[in-house]
């Protein structure tokens, strides 16, 4: 057969087929994510873990005799797995909704995001502890062995079956939601759950079943994937962020869009593998960025009215906890004596992450934008600082400043793309864009892949202060931190900062007062990115390494966690959060592979029990005390309503 543009047809069609199969999985997964997002307003980060559960479920059924030797259980093959596992995974989903997800419906999206990230970490961590990184093999069922020779290529039967069955499941789901009575309930409850309840429909139960169904779809995809990909604890992690990008491209809330986009992007990915292999991991994220420029609502999405973001700041403006002039002195004094009580390295790690969290708090706490890709700024700055210092021999200050410049540029670009959307959408977009940076760093030659850039020289400050001396380095980092902290305080208390807070509290109102809120958000986002870069660049010099962990999405999740644990939108919250998280990580370092599980559990517990954060809780205690005093002074004050039952 003729070559097409110099590409042998076997290769072309082979990759297209692989792309189509990937596309089927993308479609099935993003369908579940889209349904769950549409109905429950939850960005289901656990979806990847649930997909992995499906694959492991199939593998367990196959190995029942070895797993439970005394019981005389039979080995149940593929078809049994196909029938039983999605149901079982769906049940687990229902339990998850009942126990965890239900508690965050009425809260800001950040909590749902952190909760599902935490659950995913716990599940994937547990499997990682048990099975390690190695994949388990799962054979193709006998009835689907063999293949069809299409002349130009050999098509295995199993893959044909996956394409057929996967598309059938997608179409059936679409039909149920768009054309049946049950689907009408779902669509109506998405628009106005209260009214649907007032018609006599048990909406909470319906939400639970919807979640279970979406999760069951992930389980089904997992079973179908088992014979194609290796059954491994990491299989869900690597797909979930791509799935989020697919949902963004397809258009939030569009079932049809999720299916078509999934299939299409799988094929485009396959084609890219033929023509430009290096770009194949990033092509989906690039397409997402392009789609966002031209159709912010996604290819098939309808423009939705932005839901008014809940104001989750715990700060009271005149509280002593918000007095920056006082606290910068106290923090400085504390910082000066700190190295006499802890190792300077520990102190420096703490200061870098505290600055990172403060930078994140600037955009999340003060503007109310749920960014979820700050690892891109932290990490890219770390890489640039490390590279310029190690390879080009830049002096330390200049290396860090180069990192900051890089992070600021990226921040301006990503911010420009992302501020078109709000809420969870904003989170998914920033996450996907950060993932683009991550894949670039994995592949680019100058970043040295898994090794990262090592042995970065610390150099001399101002050309003569030896930074290899731990205390010198420490006090330099302290100065950087205090500078960043002071700058953020200054920004937040400037007229510009007042506008930011007004955007957080009521954006339509800020617009109607004549502020171009998008511009304010973009400037704040860029500043936040630059400051995150300052933290990342400094970190690269301190630890003399820039590594993949710096750009990995967990770093973004850590920023969110530190801010939430400490207290969102408070001056001191991120610092307190950083102290807690860094101490926790140090204590848990001995746990080995359990560390992911414990950290995930911390995410979940923080969302369930420590929503206001430490500083926020302290703040409400202070304000309650003040209130009591006021009431003692004015005994005739109207009593609060009592005896009301819920």
């Amino acid at each position, binding site marked *: 057969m003729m070559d097409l543009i110099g590409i042998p047809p076997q290769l072309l069609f082979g990759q297209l087929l692989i792309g189509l199969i990937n596309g089927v999985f993308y479609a099935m997964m993003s369908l579940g994510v889209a349904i769950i997002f549409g109905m429950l307003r939850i960005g289901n980060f656990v979806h990847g873990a649930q997909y992995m559960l499906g694959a492991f479920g199939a593998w367990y059924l196959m190995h029942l005799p070895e797993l439970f030797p005394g019981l005389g259980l039979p080995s149940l093959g593929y078809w049994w797995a196909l029938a039983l596992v999605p149901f079982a995974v769906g049940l687990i989903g229902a339990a998850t909704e009942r126990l965890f997800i239900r508690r965050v419906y009425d809260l800001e999206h950040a909590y749902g995001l952190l909760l599902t990230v935490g659950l995913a970490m716990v599940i994937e961590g547990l499997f990682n502890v048990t099975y390690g990184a190695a994949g388990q093999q799962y054979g193709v069922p006998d009835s689907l062995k063999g293949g069809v020779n299409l002349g130009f290529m050999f098509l295995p039967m199993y893959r044909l079956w996956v394409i057929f069955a996967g598309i059938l499941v997608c179409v059936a789901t679409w039909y149920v939601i768009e054309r049946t009575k049950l689907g009408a309930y779902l669509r*109506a409850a998405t628009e*106005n759950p209260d009214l649907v309840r007032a018609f006599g429909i048990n909406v909470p139960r319906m939400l639970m079943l919807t979640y279970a169904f979406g999760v069951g779809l992930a389980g089904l995809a997992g079973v179908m994937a088992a014979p194609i990909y290796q059954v491994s604890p990491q299989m869900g992690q690597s797909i979930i962020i791509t799935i989020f990008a697919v949902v963004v491209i397809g258009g939030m809330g569009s079932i049809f869009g999720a299916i078509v986009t999934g299939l299409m992007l799988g094929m485009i990915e396959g084609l890219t593998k033929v023509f430009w292999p290096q770009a194949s991991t990033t092509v989906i994220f690039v397409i997402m960025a392009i789609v966002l420029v031209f159709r912010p609502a996604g290819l098939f999405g309808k423009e939705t009215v932005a839901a008014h973001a809940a104001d989750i700041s715990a700060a009271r403006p005149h509280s002593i906890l918000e007095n920056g002039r006082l606290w910068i002195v106290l923090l400085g004094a504390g910082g000066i004596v700190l190295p006499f009580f802890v190792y300077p390295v520990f102190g420096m790690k703490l200061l870098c992450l505290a600055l990172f969290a403060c930078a994140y708090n600037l955009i999340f706490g003060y503007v109310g934008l749920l960014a979820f890709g700050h690892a891109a700024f932290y990490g890219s700055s770390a890489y640039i600082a490390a590279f310029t210092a190690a390879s080009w021999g830049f002096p330390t200050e200049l290396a860090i400043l180069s990192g900051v410049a890089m992070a600021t540029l990226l921040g301006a670009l990503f911010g420009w793309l992302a501020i078109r959307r709000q809420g969870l959408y904003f989170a998914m977009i920033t996450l996907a864009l950060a993932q683009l940076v991550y894949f670039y760093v994995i592949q680019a030659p100058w970043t040295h892949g898994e090794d990262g850039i090592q042995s970065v020289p610390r150099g001399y400050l101002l050309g003569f202060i030896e930074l290899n001396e731990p205390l010198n380095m420490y006090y330099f980092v302290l100065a950087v931190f205090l500078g960043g902290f002071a700058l953020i305080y200054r920004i937040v208390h400037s007229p510009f900062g007042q506008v930011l807070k007004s955007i957080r509290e009521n954006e339509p109102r800020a617009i109607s007062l004549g502020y171009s809120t998008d511009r304010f958000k973009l400037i704040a986002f860029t500043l936040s990115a630059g400051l995150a870069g300052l933290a990342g660049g400094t970190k690269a010099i301190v630890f003399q390494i820039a590594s993949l962990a710096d750009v990995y999405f967990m770093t973004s999740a850590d920023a969110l966690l530190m801010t939430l644990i400490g207290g969102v939108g408070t001056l001191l919250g991120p610092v307190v959060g950083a102290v807690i998280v860094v101490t926790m990580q140090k204590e848990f370092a001995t746990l080995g592979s359990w560390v992911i599980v414990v950290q995930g559990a911390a995410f979940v517990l923080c969302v369930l029990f420590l929503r206001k954060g430490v500083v926020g809780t302290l703040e409400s205690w202070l304000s309650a005390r003040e209130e009591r005093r006021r009431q003692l002074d004015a005994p005739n004050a109207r009593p609060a309503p009592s005896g009301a039952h819920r």
Partner: protein
Amino acid sequence: MNAAPSLKVADLNAWYGESQALHGMGLEVGRGEVVTLLGRNGAGKTTTLRSIMGLLRRKTGTIRFEGEDIAGRLPEAIARRGIAYCPEERGIFASLTVEENLLLPPVIAEGGMSVDDIYALFPNIAERRTSQGTKLSGGEQQMLAIARILRTGATLLLLDEPTEGLAPVIVQQIGAVIRKLKERGFTVLLVEQNFRFAAKLADRHYVVEHGHVIDTLSASDVAANLERIQNYLKV
């Protein structure tokens, strides 16, 4: 009052967050009666309906429907006992067709109207059954919002300002519909600001102010007390 009580609300207090919206609200609706709640904006009329329906959770007091206290129940449980609610903003679903909107509320008891009867009562809706719900005109949407709660077998209808923002000719049509519903034996609790409309329909009127009832009038009192009522409602 001559009919057996269908709904009896007593001592109802309700809150939105920290602010109290109802202060000792009390009313009775007999079976087969049409009763209105009259009052200015913010008097607590809609809040009363939402409390009866269970959509407002923070409340104290008793709400008895057909002899049973429903004050602590969830909205879906209250709906299944035979109360149907038509909200002020109509609540037509954009993602559903007209017919899907109409057929959405599940049948909870026998005795509801058949779909054919409903189409006979609302011919405009029959013509547009395949359109998207929110593509209807305001008046048609209001008709649809009323129509869809007639199928379910609910006996007590809570209608929140069905005439708001509609042309006089549509208001007349809605008046005719409510009269037919009364003939069919439905009990109706109607929230209205349009007194001229309500006066022609209702058996009794409650005037609501500051979250409680300040006056009660029967249909026969209305003619003699027009000025008093105008005073209650004028802004």
